[in-house]
């Protein structure tokens, strides 16, 4: 058996690259059918209000308007808006269109018209009378005993508290020489993918609903629409040819997807509903702002003895992934750094009238590990130990518990720290902040993380793959995975080619059509390579077995003497028969009977990362310039090198923005977002990005993944946040515990420090 890795680990041209660079790739809004109507949603301008009266007569009378729906015209049944239930409860609290708005932008009515201009005009003609209800934006306000209940729950809690408890925390604190207790918080960034949400629906005379949607979970969308609209699954087809980014937001099902389907069904015409950029800010999802109170005990020798914490997330007007991220964030904080297996952590999610928070790359871990990793720095400073050395000492490794409760098998986190520290010459560069002076101060910091590949055991991890042999030896690979731009389809082809022994160019990947491809739960939780890829590898192994069996008969050899490499059957290291010749046959056989299908259920694995950041802080303006980032990631095995680098570089751009400049700012009185546009929602652009060096380690391949590969999609956005905060703290000598670190906050911190020393 050949052990040579010829295809994985490389960076072959993406299978869908040509479409993207020539503008021929079809995204949701690019589909246009004769007679298409344009749908638009009328949204509440109030964060909390009941509709008293709604009059659509004028809108319906406008020439070119074909249909108007209000919340009274759609199924009343609530739904969760989520594809798959996570642990904790599944909060079924959303309406397709609502008569009670719970955030600014909640949809109450919709129109379909022959042009976008007329649809816009029609929205203005819908007359609505609202009864204003009290607006609650902060968690402190929402949990008061007498606060207005946004849904029928107690004290605006989405679900009962999530408890993670282990060992003996009291004993742990008792034996500590030093106890630290602080509060940390993260802000409200948004995904800001480049392709606004869009959905196109057709309902034909066979009562079949076809949907082109920009979604991360085609099968989840299919099931939700089937259930909620009462259409059997075989009559619902979701097609996603290309989509322009999602980062978690497009996991959920949105009002426009229901509305689009209903309008198509009612008018009998194709309907397209395309969000404006402003609507993506108002009415999709944000990250959950989270406050973490974290208390830890430490001995003088630097070992941690106990960990106690309260993780509270602000989920906005509807629950969405509130329970999910709260659970993940809470359980994540049980690991990363050992604490003698003594922990007591509680997680809560609270309704407010803020924009709805949902799934976002780094799902709960961004917030939880920010708190933990900054506190690690604080403890190192307290002891006078180098922050990297302190982390290496306490990093989880071989035998330690992961957040899922499984024990780890290697010291990957420590290795990431060691490799990175050496690369950036940490011990030479790191200086205590006391030694710094001058107007511009340099600092260096480190942040770490771990992330699961997949969401097992929280959800049942399933992916399917089918490999079909064609009469000429080429192959069609049908995969359920979704490619949001990650390069997943290319990776799947590489895995299949490597396992099977065929050439990459002989494989075509088919994806994104629920009528055709096998089931997959969707692209999230960093699961695609690990679980989708493993399904593909298993299917390829199955097809290879069929080919070898056929070849053994044809060549009168024993299967054990044969292998496949480079598209050829190989015996004693020599190519003896091409796959093409092997399967050619007559009348489509034997190729047509060479099919391998696998549905793969998975366990969990963890990837790790350490990010090292150098910053310069202008102490007069508070502005932070990130000068250099070194990102060390342990991923088990690289399938596509450019793909892995791309995830790291892109995740860093997002995490960097979240750390210093991105925030959806709400009017404190009305709850209205004040910067729902690219001009005032400040993402780092080409001129703002620092040089990034990526180092990818393959220390701990996991047999659960294809060739040992684990996920990497979410890791980079998690580690960068605490790394930047710690670097800024190092530069200015004031501890930063809250994101985003705006210039004003830097100046406030410096002012506080000056006052203290005076």
């Amino acid at each position, binding site marked *: 058996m050949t052990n040579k890795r010829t295809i994985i680990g490389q960076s072959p041209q993406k299978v869908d690259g040509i479409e993207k660079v020539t503008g021929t790739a079809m995204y949701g809004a690019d589909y246009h059918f004769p007679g298409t109507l344009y749908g638009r949603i009328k949204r509440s301008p109030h964060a909390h209000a009941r509709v008293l009266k709604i009059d659509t007569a004028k809108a319906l009378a406008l020439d070119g308007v074909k249909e108007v729906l209000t919340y009274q015209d759609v199924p009343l049944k609530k739904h969760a808006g989520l594809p798959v239930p996570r642990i904790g409860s599944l909060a079924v609290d959303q309406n397709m269109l609502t008569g009670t708005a719970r955030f600014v932008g909640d949809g109450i009515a919709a129109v379909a018209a022959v042009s976008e*201009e007329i649809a816009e005009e029609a929205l203005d003609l819908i007359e609505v009378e609202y009864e204003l209800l009290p607006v609650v934006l902060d968690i402190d306000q929402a949990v008061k005993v007498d606060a207005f209940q946004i849904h029928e729950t107690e004290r605006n809690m989405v679900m009962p508290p999530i408890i993670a408890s282990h060992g003996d925390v009291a004993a742990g604190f008792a034996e500590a020489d030093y106890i630290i207790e602080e509060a940390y918080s993260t802000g409200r960034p948004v995904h800001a993918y480049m392709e606004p949400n869009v959905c196109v629906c057709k309902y034909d005379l066979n009562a079949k609903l076809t949907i082109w949607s920009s979604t991360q979970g085609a099968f989840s969308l299919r099931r939700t629409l089937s259930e909620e609209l009462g259409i059997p699954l075989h009559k619902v087809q979701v097609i996603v040819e290309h989509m322009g980014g999602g980062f978690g937001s497009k996991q959920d099902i949105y009002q426009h997807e229901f509305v689009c389907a209903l309008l198509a069904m009612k008018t009998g015409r194709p309907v397209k509903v395309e969000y404006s950029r402003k609507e993506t800010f108002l009415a999709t999802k944000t990250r959950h702002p989270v406050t973490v109170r974290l208390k830890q005990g430490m001995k003088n020798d630097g070992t941690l003895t106990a960990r106690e914490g309260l993780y509270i997330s602000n989920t906005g007007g509807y629950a969405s992934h509130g329970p999910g991220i709260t659970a993940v964030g809470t359980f994540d904080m049980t690991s990363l750094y050992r604490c003698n297996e003594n922990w007591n952590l509680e997680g809560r999610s609270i309704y407010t009238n803020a924009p709805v928070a949902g799934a976002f790359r780094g799902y709960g871990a961004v917030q939880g590990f920010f708190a933990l990793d900054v506190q690690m720095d604080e403890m190192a400073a307290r002891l006078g130990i180098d922050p990297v050395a302190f982390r290496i000492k306490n990093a989880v490794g071989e035998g330690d518990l992961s957040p899922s409760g499984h024990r780890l098998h290697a010291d990957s986190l420590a290795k990431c720290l060691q490799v990175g520290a050496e690369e950036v010459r940490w011990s030479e560069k790191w200086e205590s902040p006391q030694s710094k002076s001058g107007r511009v101060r340099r600092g260096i910091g480190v942040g770490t993380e771990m992330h699961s590949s997949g969401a097992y055991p929280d959800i049942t991890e399933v992916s399917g793959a089918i490999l079909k042999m064609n009469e000429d030896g080429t192959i069609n690979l049908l995969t359920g995975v979704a490619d949001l731009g990650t390069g997943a389809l290319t990776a799947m082809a590489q895995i299949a080619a490597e396992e099977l022994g065929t050439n990459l160019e002989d494989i075509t990947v088919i994806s994104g059509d629920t009528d055709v491809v096998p089931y997959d739960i969707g692209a999230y939780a960093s699961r695609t390579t690990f679980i989708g890829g493993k399904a593909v590898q298993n299917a390829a192994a199955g097809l290879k077995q069929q080919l070898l069996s056929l070849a053994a008969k044809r060549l009168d050899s024993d299967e054990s003497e044969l292998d496949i490499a480079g598209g050829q059957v190989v015996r004693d290291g020599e190519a003896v028969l091409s796959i093409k010749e092997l399967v050619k046959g007559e009348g489509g056989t034997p190729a047509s009977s060479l099919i391998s299908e696998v549905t793969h259920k998975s366990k969990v694995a963890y990837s790790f990362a350490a990010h090292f950041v150098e910053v310069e802080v202008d102490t007069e303006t508070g502005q932070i310039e990130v000068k250099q980032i070194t990102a060390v990631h342990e991923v088990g095995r690289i399938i596509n090198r450019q793909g892995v680098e791309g995830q790291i570089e892109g995740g860093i751009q997002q995490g960097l923005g979240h750390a210093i400049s991105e925030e959806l700012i709400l009017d404190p009185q009305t709850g209205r977002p004040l910067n729902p546009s690219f*001009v005032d929602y400040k993402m780092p*652009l*080409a*001129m*703002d990005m620092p040089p990034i060096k990526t180092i990818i380690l393959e220390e701990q391949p996991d047999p659960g993944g294809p060739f040992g590969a684990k996920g990497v999609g979410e890791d980079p956005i998690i580690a960068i946040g605490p790394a930047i905060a710690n670097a800024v703290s190092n530069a200015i000598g004031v501890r930063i515990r809250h994101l985003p670190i*705006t210039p004003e906050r830097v100046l406030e911190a410096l002012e506080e420090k000056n006052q203290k020393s005076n």
Partner: protein
Amino acid sequence: MRRFEYIEPVTLDEAVALLGEHSGKASLLAGGTDLLVEIKEHLREPDYVINIKKIEGLHTLTYNDKDGLIIGSLTTVREVEKSTDVNEKYAGLAQAASALGSIQVRNRATVAGNICRASPSADTLPPLIADGAAVKLFGRDGERVLLLEEFFTGPGKTQMAADEILVEIAVPPPSPHTGKAYIKHGRRKAMELATVGVAVTLTLDSGDICSDVRIVLGAVAPTPIRALKAEAVLRGKVVDERVIEEAAVRARAESRPISDVRSSASYRREMVYVQSRRALGLAFNRARGII
């Protein structure tokens, strides 16, 4: 976007007549980078859009030592950004132009449009005022010239009548030993609106004596404003670090910023101090020929 009628006049008279005829319901279209956004966001709802790009003689950019810099009203920000004359003689304006929006926006946006939009944080306004620019307006009764410094009356408001068209911006030629600077304080390096803008034009006499100075602040008042008291600190004095510091402190006191989604008033005030100091230092070094 919202429906409108579209007209392409070929002369200024025709354009002015249209503005009069459709008073209050018409908007001029030059670069379109403000107008189209405002129509899409329902901030302006014209029934008539009058494209003036077919009118001859407005797309000019010339410099001579007598008349100075003449910018026609159809001249784009990008053209100004790349002009050798502008870069050599009007460094503040060049800096402001290159910091406005993006290249795609600058290829369409006009300096005249930046002026007429009269946003308090507009980039080209402070350096133009610092250089003593004047605007020529064309209306029913002929032409008139106004100093740019006196042109703005409030956020988004100017002295221009509803049926007047800005046709030309004239900027006097620089005196010898003049240094110019524009600093845009923002939260990222491009695609940004200034939270504070400071333009300085500083002229030196023999030695390092400041014979004239103009300090113009953007984004910290309803219109761009000259920091007159700060200027008074410098005029006639030998320029050095201490004097610059004092001027910057005065400038801070003269600013009247508000708090908004981009920044708080107190931060803006503090940045007026920091960036005035830095802009003065930059202009001073340029006046001395050091940079």
